[in-house]
């Protein structure tokens, strides 16, 4: 006990503050970095912070998923695309911000709206969810149970969406034989091996 509080509370507050700070720092870096590649790395910082928030909210599986899928796969895909575009243009692509006044106004208005909404709402516990007591306390099993029973249709539909997006993205991104890999009016001669 310290100042009448159990130690775990201090640990929780400290963990929350550091993880939330990491998230917001990463988000800020993502939107103000002048080049795209550092922006991707800042996004990685932000995603790690969000994974920490999931951990604090007892989302053990989600923390792993966040790091595995978001940080491990989605960010890699984005970085691949950035490198591909950089290869085609042959120069470092800048990503400065434009329409600054409009962006600041819209984001500030949105933030104000959300904050007012958060602090004027009264929250109370819900009573929904009728999960069997067999899996109580075991997050992963509980999520698996929900996926296979209550959310079975979304589970199957996700696979259809994945299939559609995979085929669509393959069709869009495929480089046709004989197609100029660069832009229609590429500024420099491509040194194609």
């Amino acid at each position, binding site marked *: 006990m310290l100042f009448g*509080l159990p130690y775990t509370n201090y640990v929780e507050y400290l963990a*929350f503050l550091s993880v939330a700070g990491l*998230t*917001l720092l990463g*988000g800020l870096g*993502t*939107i103000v970095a002048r080049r795209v590649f550092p*922006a*991707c790395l800042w*996004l990685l910082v932000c995603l790690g912070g*969000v994974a920490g*928030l*999931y951990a604090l*909210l007892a*989302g053990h*599986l*989600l923390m792993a*998923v*966040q790091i595995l*899928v978001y940080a491990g*796969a*989605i960010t890699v895909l*984005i970085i691949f*695309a*950035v490198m591909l*575009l950089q290869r085609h243009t042959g120069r470092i*692509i*800048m990503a*400065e911000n*434009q329409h600054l006044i409009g*962006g*600041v106004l*819209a*984001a500030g208005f*949105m933030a104000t709206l*959300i*904050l007012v909404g*958060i602090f004027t709402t009264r*929250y109370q*516990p*819900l*009573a*929904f*969810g009728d*999960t069997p007591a067999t899996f109580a306390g075991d997050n992963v099993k509980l*999520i698996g149970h929900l*996926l296979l029973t209550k*959310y079975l249709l979304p589970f199957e539909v996700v696979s259809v969406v*994945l299939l559609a*997006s*995979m085929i*669509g*993205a393959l069709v869009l*991104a495929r*480089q046709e034989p004989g*197609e*100029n*890999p660069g*832009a*229609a009016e590429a500024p420099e001669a491509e040194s194609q091996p």
Partner: protein
Amino acid sequence: MSPVPLQAYLVVAGLLFAMGLFGVMTRRHAVAALLGIELMLNAANINLVAFSHYLSPNRAINTVLDGQVFVLMVIALAACEVAVGLAIILRLYRTMGVLNPDEASSMKW
């Protein structure tokens, strides 16, 4: 003093959402705008997990995990969205030679 209140998580998510909106609106590079969308999706995910955790009747064993299942779905859809979005950006660059979303305006008249 209670544990970290629900509002703290909501504030973080709200600020992250506003940042994402700013990024989407102001970025000159289509991929960077896509990063803003990722921020907004993550903000929504934080909200879902936080509500699921704090509004369930028994927080100690946390039996209500519907929000976490939603987040799993959102992450899967985010993967789809990124894959298709990046493919569209690559195709846009190959056919029109532009990366700024404002300049790809030939469908507008």
